[in-house]
């Protein structure tokens, strides 16, 4: 999958996401514009963590952010395997509401063995992120 991603424009980012069972289950799709991956995740009842508000579960938010970080890292490094998460820190900024979510990421630092990635997630307004992630991922292959 990751190998296919590096082969350039002919590969749909959605082939990569669809091949990852958990991403398919979350309903994550994506597109790439100017080398920047943008993920999209429609709201679904199974994503709810707090039924009173209702709000998207913090784990789902972390999952989408981590996925954005990994896919962007695969894309930028032309990796032949999925980078392995070493550590992540997620800041929860606003409630994740029952609407479609988006996420994108950028590599703050690309080393030979490890990348430092920053990701953010938003809903209706990109200037009002609901969460942000900073993490390190080990490159393989």
């Amino acid at each position: 999958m990751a190998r296919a991603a590096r082969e350039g424009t002919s590969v749909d980012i959605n082939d990569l996401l669809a091949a990852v069972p958990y991403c398919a289950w979350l309903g994550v799709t994506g597109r790439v514009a100017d080398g920047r991956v943008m993920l999209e995740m429609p709201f679904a009842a199974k994503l709810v963590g707090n039924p009173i508000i209702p709000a998207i579960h913090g784990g789902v938010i972390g999952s989408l952010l981590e996925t954005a970080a990994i896919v962007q890292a695969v894309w930028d490094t032309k990796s032949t395997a999925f980078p392995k998460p070493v550590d992540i820190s997620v800041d929860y900024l606003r409630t994740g509401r029952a609407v479609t979510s988006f996420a994108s990421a950028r590599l703050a630092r690309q080393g030979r063995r490890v990348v430092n990635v920053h990701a953010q997630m938003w809903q209706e307004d990109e200037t009002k992120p609901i969460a942000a992630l900073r993490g390190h991922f080990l490159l393989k292959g």
Partner: protein
Amino acid sequence: MADENMSERFLHSLGGAAYFEAIGAQVVEAVPGRSTMRLPYAPHLVGNPDTGVVHGGVITGLLDHACGMAVGSALGALSSTAGGMRGIATLDLRIDYLKAAKPGADITVIAECVKITRQIVFARGRAFQASEDDLIASATGTFIITELRSGGIITEPRAGS
């Protein structure tokens, strides 16, 4: 009494969270300030189709949920609180992925409330498979105490956001 009800309702609402149930997780133990949960391995949780390893986000979700439950139950057990009806919101969560989870094996998560202050609560969590001496991940979470309005709606953690 009101606080006991709150605690019970809190545990019920967290235990009944749709995502938590949808990934197949179960609460093993929940006492004030501490929670234990287990997640059986399932194909739809796989994050790396080449290896079968569970997606890191699933472990994040388990740890967030367990920390939240430990914090919520600790708050619920505090009987001296005026009003009593409080909720929590995660401010941040730091996860160290210590080693890859072994495909096919259950994941157990234990979380503990470390410190309760007037507005902020601190929690720690850890995840393992075969042995608690062989962790696959650890977590540090910070939560802010929110208030429940009389109508039962949790107040936004940050007004005007």
